[in-house]
């Protein structure tokens, strides 16, 4: 591209706009899908009155949260109180800058890559940025000037921090197999190997996903924010737009975990058996689909599969008590992921190096 203004300013701005737009709409509509899917599992249909078959429900919810009265507790720490939701939502959205949705393609005669940046420490960046979200939880709970919000916030933060360790360890097993930290190279390594990393790394896959559920404070690990509990959650004192931000951050985090799981374990934008069935995927039945849609479509399908499993878990399982939750994280998941790491390392060595 000749013009540096276009290449370094305009194109990234457009990409940011597209990614943010898609992600925020996806997070909002995820709340709608959650209500519908939960309802279908519970012998009822969810919202079906607002708009055609209920599809405008998230818009109505967003409008409602916009116009709700914004109550700030009188003795809350103002600045920190305002900063809490921001510190939770921003990292969830920033993580999307390094997630690749496909390979590069040509648009109006120029090379365009469907991701914002291919940082060569991609995974490290993701783990680091998503940890900043813990600040938002603690600060939100503390700034509310409510002993029970504080307790809820501390519990939530303890849960998040302790489940990041097994999550990180399962990510390391993928790195052993792919020999790179960059997300684009991890997907290309899966293409070169001809198999998604979920197959050799199924233990890591399972642990990553379950820790992801704990990271987003979802059932069965949602004691800190359950309504029938004695201690209130950290977002009790928030109302209106600030509550909308926490709400959005929870769903955006779900999408983040699902996208990363897709990239690391399910081959990102690759179809099933990309090399073995390469002839089938290149056949005329699929040849008319432009590559960018083909890649993005596979990515979306896999992400939706994870999101469906998130919602399925919520509809089925009882909740863990907090001490049981921590015991599970420290006494079960960390040893298992360590053993798995050693096993995968041994396996990679025996196979003759990372593939």
């Amino acid at each position, binding site marked *: 591209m000749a013009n540096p203004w276009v290449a370094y300013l305009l194109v990234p701005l457009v990409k940011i706009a597209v990614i943010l737009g898609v992600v925020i709409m996806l997070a909002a509509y995820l709340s709608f899908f959650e209500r519908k899917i939960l309802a279908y599992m*519970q012998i009822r249909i969810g919202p079906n009155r607002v708009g055609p078959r209920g599809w405008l429900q998230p818009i109505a919810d967003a409008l409602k949260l916009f116009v709700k009265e914004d109550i700030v507790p009188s003795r809350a720490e103002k600045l920190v109180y305002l900063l809490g939701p921001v510190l939770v939502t921003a990292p969830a959205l920033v993580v999307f800058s390094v997630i690749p949705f496909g390979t590069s393609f040509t648009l109006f005669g120029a090379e365009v890559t469907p991701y914002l940046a291919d940082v060569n420490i991609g995974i490290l960046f993701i783990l680091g940025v998503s940890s900043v979200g813990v600040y938002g939880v603690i600060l939100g709970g503390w700034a509310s000037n409510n002993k029970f919000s504080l307790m809820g916030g501390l519990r939530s933060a303890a849960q998040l921090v302790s489940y990041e360790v097994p999550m990180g360890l399962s990510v390391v097993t993928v790195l052993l197999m792919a020999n790179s930290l960059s997300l684009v190279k991890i997907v290309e390594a899966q293409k070169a190997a001809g198999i998604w990393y979920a197959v050799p790394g199924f233990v890591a896959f399972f642990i990553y996903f379950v820790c992801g559920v704990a990271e987003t404070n979802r059932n069965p690990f949602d004691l800190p924010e359950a309504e029938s509990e004695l201690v209130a959650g950290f977002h009790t004192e928030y109302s209106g737009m600030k509550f909308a931000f926490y709400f959005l951050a929870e769903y955006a985090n779900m999408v983040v975990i699902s996208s990363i799981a897709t990239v690391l374990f399910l081959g990102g934008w690759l179809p099933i058996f990309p090399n073995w069935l390469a002839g089938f995927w290149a056949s005329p039945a699929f040849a008319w689909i432009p590559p960018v849609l083909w890649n993005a479509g596979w990515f979306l399908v896999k992400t939706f599969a994870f999101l469906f499993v998130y919602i399925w878990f919520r509809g089925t*399982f009882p909740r863990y008590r907090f001490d049981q939750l921590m015991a599970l994280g420290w006494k079960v998941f960390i040893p298992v992921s360590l053993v798995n790491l050693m096993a995968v390392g041994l396996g990679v060595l025996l196979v003759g190096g990372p593939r």
Partner: protein
Amino acid sequence: MSFWGFLASVVPFELAQGLGVTGRFFFKRKATIQYPEVKPVPKDRFRGMFGFSEERCIVCHSCAKACPIAIIHIQDHFEEVEVEGKKRKKKVLDRYDIDVKRCMFCGLCEEACPTKPVAIWLTTKSYETAAYERNERLYFTKERLQSWDGVRPYPGVVPPSQGQLPEDPTGGSGEAKP
């Protein structure tokens, strides 16, 4: 512990079974009824809103005595009427009010009524009695009891306007059954 026991403690088989149950319900027929477009119709004996027939009422006050919370208010007076050349005294109903906002729809008034078919009944299959104002709209006088929106005659009874003969309350169609 045996190998399968160890495996079962690590791999959550029973959790997967639980997921299977909810997953199967995902595809089953849903139980939602789209009210108000579709209104469920209650069964025949359903104790809903009242129906009252002034012609059949003999003003015996049994319903008022049977009501556990005394919400039926009856006032009457005697009138002289000519029947077959003789002067008879007949009870005439002045006031028959039911305070529906306190009613518990127990049906004891219907059970106590001695006429056949009964003069006060709850089997109108109507449950939509909500009102915006409680004290006036939920206090039913004699006229309102016979004319509220949706009132139905006692099951099997044909109202006089449609040809009911005084001796045969069913209009000739057979025995009126609860």
